[in-house]
């Protein structure tokens, strides 16, 4: 309860501001329409009209919630208007990309920690790689993947992986280097090799770092999947774009909130796994 109350308060404040902004931003259209029709609107009429438009500049919260509700509960989940249907398509790409990206990130991190040349050369370029506007690459990547015969989900997953590997590399390099000199020396007095050190010391002690980066990584993965869907027929990304294409602001906002909710759930999910893992490893107190 005392964790929920502050959140609810903030949400309530945002909703109030939001309604205000909706009136403010949608108002000009109401006035223009009235002017074109040669009538005047005022008072409650005006406010009411700002919140019931089909194509508002800013949909009022209840419109978005209705959009979400229609998309989630108002449709069969196999329907193409169902947000669950599209969410699932996005999720599958997100998860596949996340697995690839995380695997790649961990491998790279292990390489960086064990190989000085990789350490020096990979990092600056990994940073530079993240500066590339992925949305510009996505269509070209789709073409290349297409010509290689890969399916849509793989293309999406590659973009996801591309965005999620970076936080994993950064976090894991930190994590794998987190054992202090004494912990490393201890294994040396046992005359343990690098592989043993990795398995018995570096990997376990990197777990908190790993989970922290997994949380960032899964959110990045989702963004990647959505960007990858801009040129695919289905998924939340496609929904966002078609909403934008037809000026369906409510559809955009509903898809937007569906995506953010999914991200939040994924992060919470990883948090759960983290708690369980760390507890089983005895690292959660």
């Amino acid at each position, binding site marked *: 309860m005392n964790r929920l109350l502050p959140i609810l308060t903030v949400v309530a404040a945002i909703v109030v501001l939001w309604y205000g902004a909706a009136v403010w931003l949608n108002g000009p259209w109401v006035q223009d329409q009235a002017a074109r029709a040669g009538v005047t609107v005022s008072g409650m009429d005006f406010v009411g009209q700002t919140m019931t438009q089909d194509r508002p500049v800013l949909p009022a919260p209840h419109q978005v919630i209705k959009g979400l509700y229609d998309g989630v509960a108002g449709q069969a989940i196999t329907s193409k208007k169902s947000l669950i249907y599209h969410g699932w398509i996005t999720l599958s790409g997100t998860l596949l990309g996340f697995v690839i990206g995380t695997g790649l990130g961990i491998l790279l991190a292990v390489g960086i920690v064990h190989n000085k040349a990789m350490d020096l050369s990979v990092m600056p370029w990994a940073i530079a790689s993240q500066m590339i506007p992925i949305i510009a690459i996505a269509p070209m990547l789709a073409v290349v993947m297409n010509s290689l015969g890969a399916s849509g989900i793989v293309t999406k997953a590659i973009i996801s992986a591309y965005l999620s590997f970076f936080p994993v590399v950064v976090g894991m390099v930190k994590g794998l280097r987190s054992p202090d000199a004494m912990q490393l020396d201890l294994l040396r007095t046992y005359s343990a090799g690098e592989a043993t050190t990795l398995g018995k010391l570096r990997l376990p002690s990197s777990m908190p770092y790993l989970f922290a980066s997994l949380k960032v990584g899964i959110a990045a993965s989702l963004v990647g999947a959505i960007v990858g869907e801009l*040129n695919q*027929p289905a998924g939340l990304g496609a929904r966002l774009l078609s909403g934008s*294409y037809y000026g369906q602001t409510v559809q955009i906002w509903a898809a937007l909130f569906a995506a953010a909710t999914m991200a939040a759930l994924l992060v919470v999910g990883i948090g759960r796994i983290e708690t369980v893992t760390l507890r089983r490893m005895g690292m959660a107190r």
Partner: protein
Amino acid sequence: ADDVTLQLKWVTQAQFAGYYVAAAKGFYEAEGLNVTILPGGPDVAPTQVIAGGGADVVVDWMPSALAAREKGLPLVNIAQPFKSSGMMLTCLKESGVATPADFADKTLGVWFGGNEYPFLNWMSTLGLKTDGSAGGVTVLKQGFNVDPLLQKQAACVSTMTYNEYWQVIDAGIAPEDLVTFKYEEQGVATLEDGLYVLEANLADPAFEDKMVRFVRASMQGWKYAEANPDEAAQIVIDNDATGAQTIEHQKRMMAEIAKLTAGSNGALDEADYQRTVDKLLAGGSDPVISAAPTGAWTHQITDKALQ
């Protein structure tokens, strides 16, 4: 059956009804074809898809096809189901635009990505500069919808007769409050929605045969769609994976599309081609093609398909 992959220029909508109808009505199957239709979108360049081998045949507009040809991608028009152009500028009357002469010092929304050339050409014939200098027009790269007009961020935006125009209407603006300039009527129209393949493939008799059957079935689809617009619209809806299209909108779109395909039996009219090339060569400041292309179209397929 022979596999054919068709890449569309835009998302699934009645603009491409002929192909969806042909598939749904079994016209392709009857020709022994197994056709995969790939929807496009703002993020898809059909020319690039075909260059990468992702499609056998693409729907594209002639300006971008010719530009690609000059860049070294030998695309050939094998059929032209669209006789006329649906592009226009739609302006709010209250912005004070009544004739093209009023464009000066106004902000105009334009689609880029290969669609800007007819517009630039038009402006240069009007003698209006597009670089933002005084007395010219301010050009916006418009997004995917008509919001700039509704929000009065632009005096005019690009629309298609069959689509965006109706979005403006749907938004609640009466037709009397709008002024439209059809490219067709302004004499700056270029050919839209044609079928293009790679030149090298045409030499292969098997491919040629496939395309003959494809074009024949596609045209059958188009004519069926013209005759049965409501059924065609429903077929389009059934094929839309985003679930964003509505049947009302697609019916109306189908009706408008039928006007554009009406004059065509599928074969490219050489005069239309020549007009398009002339427009593009005249260009604006930065012409899209620098020399008249050769071999950019053929009747090889339609001759066989339509006999």
